[in-house]
Structure formats: C-alpha cells, structure tokens
C-alpha cells in the first residue's frame, strides 16, 4: 500500500501540472479539443487523488491531514473536485488555468514534504473527525474558489472599463458568468462549511464536553461563516450585485485567511495534531 501511496504522491503533481499546461493552452488558443483533454485529465487526476487519499488513510489508519502539508494535498483535492463540478455544470473551461495552478502548487508542496512515516493520533483516527474535516475543508475550498471568481470579475471589469482588451479580456468568460459562478461557489461554501462547523462543535462537545470555542480559530471561522451568510442573504434579498459585491467577497476571504493563518502560526490549539 505504501508503494502505491508513494507512486501516486509523485504522479499527482505531474498530472495536475500537465492539466494546468493544457488549460493554459486553451486559455490562449481557445481550441475546444485542448479543453476537452484538460477536462479529461483533471477528472483522471481527481480520481487518482481520491485513490491516493483513501490509500494513505488506509495505510496510516487515520484521516490524512496530520500536518499542514498533508492538509495542502486535501485542499488541492477539494479545489480540484469543486472546480471539476463547476466546470461540468457551466461547460466553461477558461478559468481552469487559475484553479489548476493552485491545485498543482498545493499538491507539489505537499508531495515534496511528504514523510511517509506512521504516526498515531487518536483524534485523527476518529471517523467523525474525518467527516468534520472533509466538510470544513471542502467548504473553505468553495469559498476560496468563490474568491478567485470574484477576483477575476474585478480584474475583467477593470479591463473593460479601461478598454484594455488584453489576454485576460480575451480569455475570461463574461462578467455575468463569473458573478454567477461566484454566487454558486459561495452558497456551496456556506452550506458545506456550515455542516463542517456544526459537526466540529458536536464532535468537540462529545470529546471534551465543550464546543471548542476557546480556540480563536473556531470562533473566527464561525464569525466568518455568519458574515458570509448575512452578506449573501442581504445581497440576494436586495438584488444588489456587480463590482462592489465581488470586491466585498474578496476582502472577506482575505480577512478570514489572514486571521486563520496568523492564529495557526502563533497559537498552539487543539487543531494542531503533531
């Protein structure tokens, strides 16, 4: 099993890298054949990634997010899955280059720092934790994807406004599509992250007898989720959309990411397992 894990660990960045190159070529030359190949390769990559994660979990008898670098592989998988689904729903291949670049980067870093040593951690062996972590990471990935779509919207809107018909203007889909993809990813993120957080609280209560709110990372994520949900609900209710909502979406995620990253580095909380 370890041999399979090691082989896939090396193979995954290669296949994602190739997919990124193909998406890049499609972004420039717009040949549908290239996009179809990229999409097929992405599907193969995500399937192999799933096999890799299952094999790793099976071999180590724990959920495969022991360290930050292992989490990066899980994050790469989540982004790849969510992008794969969005792409298949909209048949929109031009944004693939941006997401697959992130996926490749995350997986490459994870591959390079893979240790392959067996460690035991009771928390990670708990199946409820696996479900909680999967949902939380998937939700965060969806919000990250929504942020990227919002970023693309801002860049494209600026280019259209300034009449700069460059490579991004040519390559990106229309503003309305980007906005709708952002909204879809945001709704998906709010729901999935919401389930993940609820499961986390439940799991913490079951294990430690409290909801884990002593960990700043937890309550900051709770606040961020509430903020996302409130903003989404109010914009939906009032019908406000356009550049301002996209800028807001970017800022919200940047704030969440910055705060969680700072806390991750400076505080030793129960989310650190090693």
């Amino acid at each position, binding site marked *: 099993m370890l041999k399979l894990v090691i082989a896939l660990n090396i193979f995954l960045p290669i296949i994602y890298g190739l997919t990124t190159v193909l998406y890049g070529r499609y972004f420039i030359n*717009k*040949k549908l054949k290239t996009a179809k190949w990229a999409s097929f390769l992405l599907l193969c990559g995500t399937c192999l990634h799933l096999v890799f994660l299952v094999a790793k979990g099976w071999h180590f008898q724990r959920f495969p997010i022991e360290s930050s670098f292992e989490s990066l592989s899980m994050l790469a998988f989540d982004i790849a899955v969510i992008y794969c689904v969005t792409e298949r729903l909209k048949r929109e291949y031009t944004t693939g280059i941006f997401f697959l670049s992130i996926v490749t980067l995350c997986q490459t870093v994870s591959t390079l720092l893979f240790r392959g040593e067996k460690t035991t951690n009771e928390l990670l062996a708990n199946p409820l934790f696996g479900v909680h972590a999967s949902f939380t990471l998937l939700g965060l990935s969806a919000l990250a994807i929504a942020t990227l779509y919002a970023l693309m919207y801002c860049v494209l809107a600026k280019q*259209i406004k300034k009449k700069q018909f460059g490579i991004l203007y040519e390559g990106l889909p229309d503003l*309305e599509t980007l906005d709708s993809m952002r909204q879809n990813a945001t709704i998906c993120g709010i729901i999935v992250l919401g389930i993940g957080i609820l499961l986390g609280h439940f799991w913490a209560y079951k294990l430690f007898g409290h909801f884990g709110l002593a960990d700043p990372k937890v309550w900051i994520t709770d606040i961020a989720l509430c903020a996302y949900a409130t903003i989404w609900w109010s914009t939906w209710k009032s019908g406000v959309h*356009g550049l*301002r909502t996209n800028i807001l979406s970017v800022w919200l995620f940047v704030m969440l990411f910055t705060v969680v990253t700072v806390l991750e580095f400076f505080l030793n909380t129960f989310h650190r397992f090693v």
Partner: protein
Amino acid sequence: MENEQVVVIGYDHKNTPVEFRDKISLTSDKVISFTKAVGNNNRIQEIAIVSTCNRTEFYIVTPKPEALLCWLSWQYRYNKQFAFPHHAPKPNILYNQKAVRHLFSVSSGLESLILGEDQILGQVKESYNLLLSSGRKFPLLNKLFEQAIVAGKAVRTQTTLCQGAVSIGLAAVELARKIFRSFEKHRILLIGAGETSELVAKHFASLGAKQFIIANRTREKSQALAEKFGGKVISLEQIPMALSEVNVVVTATNSPTYLVGYEETKKILKLRSGPLLMVDISTPRNINPGIKDLSQDIFLYNIDDLRNVITNNIEKRKSQIPEAQTIINYYADNYLKWRRSLNVTPTIKAVVRYFEEIRDKELEKFSNKVSAQEFQNLEKLANGIIKKIQHQPVITLQKMARKQQLDVSKLHLISEIYSTERN
C-alpha cells in the same frame, strides 16, 4: 481523364468594379440555365457557379480551356440578355492546382472583402446544392465543392479567422457579450430608430434579446422598430427613468446635444444595481462622457472605442492567415491526390483486363476437355494466380499516382504494354 483541367474564371471585388459585378451576378434560376447549357457543349464537361454580391466565379472542367470566355459571353447573351462590352474587366483565370486552392480560400473567407467573413461558406454550400440539384453528373466539381465546404468549416473551427466583430453594430454586441451571458432577461434601451439602431437591435435579437425600449424623436419610427423586434416605445424625456431598468443603452442619433445627461443619471443610479453598458455610436456624442465616473458598474464606450475594437479584431484575423493556409493546403492536397488517383484508374483497368483476358483464353482451351468440377477447380486456380500477378503492378501504380510520379506519357506507355487490342 488526364487531359481534363479545372479552370476558374472569376470576377470579384479585387478585379471588377461593382457596376459590372451587379450586371453579371446570377440568380439560382440563371445558374441552373448555365448548368443545363453544358449538355450541349463538348468542350465543357462540368460547371459550377458561385455568385454573390462580391463575386461571380465559374468553375469549369474542360479538356480544352481555350475560348471559355467566348462561351461564357455567349451564355450571358443567351440566358441573361447581357452583352459583354469590349472594355469588360479581365477576369481572374486560374488552372488546376491554383483553381482548387482558390475555391478553398474562397470558402474559408480568405478571399472575402471582409477577411474571414462568415456568409461565404453558406453561399458556396448553396452553389454545391445547385450542382447536386442540376440532375447531371459532375464528379470532379462535386468532390471539389464538397471538400471546399469541409475546408471552410475546418478553418472556422480550428482557427479564429472568422472571430471578432468587424462592424460597429457587431462590436457593440461583442462588448455586451463580455458583460452579459445572455440577453433574454436583459432590457436594451435604443436611443434612435435609424438604420444603425435597427442593425444593433437585429444583432441583439439574434442573441435572444426580447425586451427592447426604443426612444426616438419621431414616434412612428420607434413604433416600427418596436413592432419588428418587440418592446416598448418611450419619449426622449423618459430616458432617465428608463435607465433604472435597463442593462444596455445604445445611442445612434443625429442629436447635437447630450440625450443622457450627468445629473439625471446620477439620481437614477441609486435605483439600480449591476453592470450598465452604454454604447454611444452617435457623432456628436449623445451620452455625457462624465457618466462613466459615476459608478464602477458603468461601462461607457464611444464610436472611437468601437473602431479600435474593430481594428484589433482585423489584425487578429490577419494573424490567422498562415494557419488557415496550412489547413487549405492540406485539404487541397487531398483533393489533388484523389484527382491523380482518378487519372491512373483507366490504366489500372487496362492492366486488370489484360490479365483477365489471358486467363479467359487459357481456360477456354480446357472447357471441353475436363469435367465441370475440374473446370471449377482450374478456374479457382487461375483466378488466384491472376490476382497475385496483378497485385504488384496495381499497387505500384496507385502508389506512384499518389506520389505524383506518373505523367501522361508513362501512363500511355503502361496502357500500351497492357493493351488487349493488339493482334
């Protein structure tokens, strides 16, 4: 068949003034009349005509290409009651390879007045359909047109030669498409009801737009436009209020003043959200240019901006010419290979006939000497031997034909060697 030549006699926008092009252009009925006239002529074996507003071209298969112009001018006199004047423009005459490549370039849009123009492929298809409906057999031109259509499609799908707007109306729509996914649910405000507005409305309607609001000085004109494309009519005074409910504004009038003012728009912006595309095609401008700074969601373009878009698109199309040429060459070479293989067919038939005749003569000697069963066995044996002997020369001939290693003299020599008509 080796003496037949494909000739194109073409009058187009490059060599013929529009007055003469108008006179020689042919309707479908006339094309059929010309096609039928081929039956009465030994010189011309096949004919196909591509006739559009920018070109009238005759694709002719003939063993003797001389005096084709005389035949054409006679046909015009007979079928169209039009006599070619003495000072008639000289047509572009191309033979064989060049004629084939020319048609493929035409169907790909490389020869069009506007590079990469889309309509021409449909017009070549129409010519092909007329060829098919003529009821006569035109094998060489049939294949030629079929391949030209395939090449035209390949150029359109494999390159971006036909992409990007090259007219003001289309450029406005192209910009709108970069902001909105579809236009079914979006409202479009057209200020002005002239030719340009109608053209813009037509382009938007082709993309699914159904909700037009038309504002014009004369109500009758806007009413006519609204009836044609669907939508409602408003007065010029109602424009500010309409801004709160539309997503696209296009102005194309001769008004000397701003019809969309700064202050009115500023007030109205509080009532709306989302992107607003404003395209001002009028000269002098009808939308106050300061409006673009009122909101980040307002995208304002004037006629100069659209001209820049068109210039960029034309440059992009030009950059696709080498790639399109490669595709055209590929399909033209395929057609020419097919034609060469046709040239060798009579020789191959002569070779096969030669061996079959030997077989038949030899078998005849045994027909009365052996039993029916034994004769059948002998026949099988002879057939087997003949097939094996024929195989090598036939394959070699086909291979040489594909590689263009056979000229007429060689084919004559081989046909002479395997001739069955000698004593």
